[in-house]
């Protein structure tokens, strides 16, 4: 993206909010060790369940660990799960979508029915099923979210391919004797990436929510690793005596997912002509 495009993008206030929130999450994930004021796993029994103070800005948990440091370190899990799971989902899903859209016929039919079948399972339920089989762990979460999201990208890519494949430059490439893989990856793929990127961004946010939900249920990242979902899980038990644990961890999740969703929304808005259709007041 060049400077002018970046300026255009940041002309809307929502885009500025989006970039700020996402920037903060990524920054704290990368530099967690430097930014966090305390060791996130260091227990201090002289300071358990303290409310927010000058020393512990967001208070401490039941083991006297600094909440702010744990939440900053938790952003690592969120960013990691969000990016890798959606990365897998996009790679596999888009490949299937490209094949289905370009090949059509029986192959298309087979791929899309399988995609429909996976799509019939609500994401968190599919994840629960996969958890049951593979046991709870970070890797399982990534696999589960990736499998659940894959159909979305297969469908989107296929519909994009269908709209592009009849265009003249594809016919021209075919006439010049280009083989299917070359046509698909060199000629069609570049024309279908923009909506996929926007959709992928939105799904990074949803993946973070799913991870938090699964970890909250005790099926995700296992303690003592700091993850926003597991922090919420243990905080729920202390809701009456130490509400700050639950409040702050939820706000971290909310702001990160809001930022990512806004970013995806702004990216989509830039491409969708309908979003700027004129209406009279």
């Amino acid at each position, binding site marked *: 993206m060049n400077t002018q495009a970046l300026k255009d993008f940041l002309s809307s206030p929502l885009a500025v909010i989006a970039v700020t929130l996402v920037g903060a999450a990524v920054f704290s994930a990368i530099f967690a060790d430097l930014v966090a004021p305390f060791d996130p796993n260091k227990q201090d029994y002289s300071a358990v369940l303290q409310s927010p103070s000058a020393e512990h800005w967001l208070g401490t948990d039941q083991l006297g660990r600094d909440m702010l440091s744990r939440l900053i370190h938790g952003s690592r899990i969120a960013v990691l799960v969000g990016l890798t799971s959606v990365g897998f989902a996009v790679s596999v899903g888009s490949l299937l979508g490209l094949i289905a859209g370009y090949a059509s016929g029986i192959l298309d039919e087979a791929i899309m029915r399988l995609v429909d*079948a996976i799509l019939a399972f609500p994401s*968190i339920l599919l994840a629960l*099923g*996969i958890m049951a*089989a593979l046991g709870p762990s970070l890797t399982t979460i990534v696999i589960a979210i990736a499998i659940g999201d894959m159909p979305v990208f297969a469908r989107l890519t296929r519909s994009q391919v269908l709209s592009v494949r009849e265009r003249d430059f594809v016919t021209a490439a075919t006439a010049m004797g280009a083989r299917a893989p070359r046509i698909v990856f060199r000629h069609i793929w570049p024309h279908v990436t923009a909506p996929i990127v926007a959709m992928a961004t939105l799904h990074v946010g949803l993946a973070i929510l799913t991870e938090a*939900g699964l970890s909250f249920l005790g099926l995700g990242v296992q303690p003592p690793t700091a993850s926003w979902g597991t922090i*919420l899980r243990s905080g729920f038990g202390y809701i009456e005596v130490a509400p700050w644990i*639950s409040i702050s961890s939820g706000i971290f999740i909310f702001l990160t997912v809001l930022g990512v969703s806004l970013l995806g929304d702004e990216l989509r808005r830039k491409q969708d002509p309908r979003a700027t259709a004129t209406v009279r007041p």
Partner: protein
Amino acid sequence: MARYVWRRALTALVVLFLVSVISFIIVFVLPGDTAAAILGEDGGLDRERYEALRETLGLNKPLITRYVEWVTGVLRGDFGVSLRTSEEIGPALLQRAGPTFQLAIMAMLIAVAVAIPVGVASAVRQGTWVDTAGTLLALSGIATPGFWLGIMLILVFAVWLKWLPPSGYVPIWESPLESVRLMILPAVALATALMGVTIRQVRTAVIEVLGEDYITTARAKGVRERQIVYRHALRNALLPVVTVIGLQMGQTLAGAATIEVVFSIPGLGRLAVDSIFFRDFTMIQAVMLLFAVIVLASSFLTDLLYARLDPRIRYR
């Protein structure tokens, strides 16, 4: 229309078959011995229990035979027995479905009640601060973890204000008022995501409809703007909105899982979560199949409704 219904039904059947295979197979993805995995640390060495479990699970038969037996059982309404409690799965599901459906329906009503006015306002005042605020509300709804909102609602309304009970469930036929009172907080927590998605759908649909010729005609006739928006535009915009709500049905039901855990509601979602902790594989299979069938059925009905109401839609 008839041709469309048949083709659509045929596709649904193929997908239904694949769904049943996935539900059945998913718990056997685990490499190694399923029976040993279920018994785990406590009973892994007990030879007798191990053999009995292998027999119950039918692990001594080939996978295909087991699948066929399972599916024919399910078609007769026999889901087998729970590995954990030995109760019949069919009646157990039925018993757990009530709370979940009550929760989902209340959440849908709340979501739609908020989403329609906000979505319409965003569309009519497109590009103004009203629109920006509407977009922000929609995305906030999507970005809020429902179970966290639930915890916050408990904190504010049950712990601090003491207006509502923190958790629990009473069947609606036993005490309708108490049942709804207990269900308000969880329903609000579950509604936010659906509300967000619906606001955006209402906005897009209304914007699109407002650009149609018949709106221009109505304006030319001198119809009042208010009437144009609510009579002419919203009515036609509701079709895609209904579709989105139909398609979100599954996500809403599944989202109930975490909410049910937070509010101690004995529903299907909580059943699924508990079954995983207890490695109750037969129960997990049944719950997954049930959810997928509900999703397929609602998307099938939504499609038919769409085709019935909009003559422009025909199957490719």
